[in-house]
């Protein structure tokens, strides 16, 4: 048998925490053969990127390679050797395509630099670059070479980086979340491209991702990582279809379906253990969150054991047999109920137009073409579309952070522009916004209590004890412990921050929440918790929600009605089941096809010709004179 291109054998990486060694990677074992794609799947903190660091020989100073062996093409790979091979025989595709390219150098300069590193003769550089750029499907390679990073779209940047990664004909490529920063349509294209080029060159690829479904479609094999342990490894299809380990199962189940019956997302309690907690988990690191743990788990380190057909699971408990814990409850949203009632929020022919600046002076840019829309009390409305489709502009208009350039916004039947000061204050309380990025939306200098009770500061008559009580009630309402009130946002996890973000707006008892991409950027299990929280608020307090998202499955799970937007225009709207089940507009179809299917047997990503017809012309913002 040929040696694997890359083999990890019982690799451990550890860090010193308070005198004790804590293993950030523990006995990690896997291999990738020539022309194969291995997916490393896990949430943040699982140690996925650490594997990439080990391969590149670029471990941070405080970490130590403490045990095991890494073999590259049969020979042992040391840190120094790895660094010598970088770019030539081992190449990386980074996560953030826009920041991976140097903004002050042209694509040509950066690719030539790489050619120099590869040792190609000078006069071959240009034709070679052109050939490689053409291979990754960039339309006009000669023009591309002269451009700077900011003149490229995210997808184009990623194509350039893929071209660079493959230009040395490396044996191994490590792609660290290559599509996370891209929208779903571009993601499908990049994944397809990556696979296409990889097949052509017979390269081995390690794909690091948090998306089990995507991994299952793209990869031949996947390894699921949890807190530095490989908990399950096997053929991609088997792991997605029949995950054995409870963590893989919950990872799979935490993403809602796009087709078929829906179920209440099962959410794991607690969080991925951090560095300090890992030190206190001598046995199975998943045990504390595991629904099927037994007494043995906490002290016994599970080892990967074969369960047949090259499928390995590390679990000491009876996770394989116990299916009782894997029941799901069916989930269905109540139908949108506002028969003839007065709408809570109404947009009448609302549009937003900007005057062009600089070179485009005198031209008008339509951020939002006039649209009418009404939202009833307790309704759940989803707005989907890729970046630049006008979703965020719509959100800002709804809450009144912007005034529309055309049309009127009515809250409870009163036009916002004509509202008196008292009415305006009331409107502000009725319609609230939950911001996308809790890091930016929570003032780092306030405590959680100060944040949650922020709105009460305006009431000077309120006693501090009363304020505190309200803060306690709110923090409990979003499912957090009262002792979190004295912390600062920097001491909270991403999911906790998002809860505080929600609790803050609940303080003014709004009746409509406009939530702008609030679950994107969160790990899937945390995302599931936040979605369930929104549903609970809707059910218990009757709060209507406008959920803006690029993630169609999230919208399907949460929303009764959906609006599909593109280039500032609503292309399709209607009940979610109808729009997603039987899309009328080609753009909606394209979006739906781009989402990795939950059926591991389905062909994904879709073939090229369906996509490009709709894609054409969408790379540039459309300016109209």
């Amino acid at each position: 048998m040929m040696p694997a291109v890359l083999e990890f054998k019982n690799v451990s990486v550890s860090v010193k925490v308070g005198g004790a060694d804590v293993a950030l990677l523990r006995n990690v074992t896997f291999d990738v053969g020539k022309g194969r794609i291995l997916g490393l799947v896990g949430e943040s903190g699982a140690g996925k990127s650490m594997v990439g660091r080990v391969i590149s020989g670029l471990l941070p100073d405080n970490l130590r390679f403490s045990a095991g062996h890494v073999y590259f093409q049969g020979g042992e790979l040391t840190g120094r050797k790895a660094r010598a091979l970088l770019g030539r025989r081992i190449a990386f595709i980074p996560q953030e395509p826009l920041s991976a390219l140097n903004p002050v150098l042209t694509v040509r300069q950066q690719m030539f630099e790489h050619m120099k590193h590869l040792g190609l003769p000078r006069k071959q550089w240009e034709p070679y670059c052109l050939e490689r750029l053409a291979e990754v499907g960039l339309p006009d390679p000669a023009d591309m070479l002269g451009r700077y990073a900011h003149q490229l779209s995210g997808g184009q940047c990623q194509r350039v980086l893929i071209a660079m990664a493959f230009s040395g004909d490396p044996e191994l490529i490590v792609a660290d979340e290559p599509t996370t920063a891209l929208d779903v349509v571009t993601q499908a294209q990049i994944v397809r491209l990556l696979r296409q080029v990889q097949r052509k060159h017979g390269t081995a690829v390690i794909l690091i991702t948090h998306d089990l479904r995507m991994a299952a479609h793209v990869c031949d094999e996947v390894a699921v990582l949890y807190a530095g342990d490989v908990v399950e490894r096997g053929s991609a299809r088997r792991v997605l279809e029949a995950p054995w380990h409870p963590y893989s199962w919950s990872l799979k189940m935490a993403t809602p379906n796009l087709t078929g019956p829906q179920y209440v997302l099962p959410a794991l309690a607690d969080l991925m253990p951090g560095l300090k907690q890992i030190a206190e988990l001598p046995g199975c690191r998943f045990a504390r969150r595991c629904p099927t743990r037994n007494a043995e788990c906490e002290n016994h380190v599970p080892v990967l054991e074969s369960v047949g057909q090259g499928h390995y699971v590390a679990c000491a408990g009876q996770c394989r047999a116990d299916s009782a814990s894997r029941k799901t409850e069916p989930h269905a949203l109540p139908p949108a109920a506002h028969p003839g009632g007065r709408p809570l929020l109404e947009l009448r022919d609302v549009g937003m137009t900007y005057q062009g600046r600089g070179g485009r002076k005198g031209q008008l840019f339509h951020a939002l073409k006039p649209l009418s829309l009404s939202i009833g009390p307790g309704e759940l409305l989803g707005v989907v579309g890729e970046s630049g489709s006008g979703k965020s502009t719509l959100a800002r208009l709804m809450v009144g952070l912007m005034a529309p350039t055309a049309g009127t916004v009515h809250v409870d039947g009163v036009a916002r522009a004509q509202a008196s000061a008292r009415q305006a204050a009331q409107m502000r309380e009725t319609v609230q916004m939950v911001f996308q990025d809790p890091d930016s939306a929570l003032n780092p200098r306030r405590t959680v209590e100060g944040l949650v009770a922020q709105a009460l500061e305006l009431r000077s008559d309120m006693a501090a004890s009363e304020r505190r009580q309200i803060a306690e009630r709110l923090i409990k309402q979003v499912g957090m412990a009262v002792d979190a009130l004295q912390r600062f946002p920097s001491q909270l996890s991403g999911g906790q921050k998002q809860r505080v973000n929600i609790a803050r707006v609940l303080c003014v008892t709004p009746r409509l929440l406009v939530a702008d991409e609030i679950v994107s950027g969160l790990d899937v299990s945390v995302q599931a918790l936040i979605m369930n929280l929104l549903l609970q608020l809707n059910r218990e307090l009757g709060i209507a929600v406008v959920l803006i998202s690029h993630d169609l499955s999230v919208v399907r799970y949460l929303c009764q009605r959906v609006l599909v937007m593109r280039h500032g225009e609503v292309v399709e709207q209607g009940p979610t089941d109808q729009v997603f089940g039987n899309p009328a507009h080609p753009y909606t179809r394209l979006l739906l096809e781009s989402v990795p299917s939950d059926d591991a047997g389905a062909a994904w990503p879709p073939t090229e010709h369906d996509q490009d017809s709709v894609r054409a012309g969408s790379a540039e913002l459309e300016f109209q004179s």
Partner: protein
Amino acid sequence: MSSISVNQQARPRGGMARIFSHPKVAVGGAMVLLFICVAVFAPWLAPNDPNAQDLLATLLPPAWAADGMAQYPLGTDSLGRCVLSRLIYGSRIALIVAVAAATGTMLLGTTLAILAGYLRGGFDRATSFIVVLWMAFPPVVFSMMLMVGLGTGVRNVILAVILVDWTRFYRVVRAEVIVARQREYVQAARLLGFSHLRVMLREVLPGVAPLIITLFSLQMGVAIIVEAILSFVGLSVPSNVVAWGVMLADGRDQIYQAGWNLLAPVCGIVFAVLAFNLLSDGLRVVLDPRLRKRGGE
């Protein structure tokens, strides 16, 4: 180490203890404290009246030199005044100018900076233009011009420092305010019904406060130097008040015969400015959340 999150449960150590555990802050803070004590307790510390002339003992070397007198530890100047006493009393003017000028600079510069950075638009363009114009003048010449216009005196020295240096605060703080203003928490506060003034005071100001403290400390050092320059050229204090710049001017004529007369005020200035600069540099590191160790990513 990005991949594994460190979930910090405990609250960070108490603010003051954490701040003073930084070596630069500790050393700089101790030096500043010493400087303040010397200035406050000058009448008790000084061995002689700083203005008393002993014409029989002019230009004495320090006490440890062969011709030195124990009564004048650092010797005397050309009029027979005690150098040590003058050095000690001189710190009072330096401290007054440092505190008052830095406070005034901070208030003027920060207020305008927050207004300009937050409101943007016409106000920002106008103030920023004035600042650009202002900074085109060489600072030393500018302050001397001001002194000529305003007349001498400590109060006018302070005023001159404020009028020259407020631009430093304005520039740095405004840039930071513009960043803070774009954060979503500012919009969130507006949506919760906060007025612009309240947003500026409760949301924006706390974010730039560490920067202001750092600049304040730095500005105290700058003010000491400017005061020394102005009293050196005789535009600052009246002749019966002791200031380090005056000592420098007096000692200049005997630089070859009695170098220690110059050395003493120079040491005073260096000590005070170094103290404030060290403190400022330390505070910059300790108070900047970006340079601080991440609490619990």
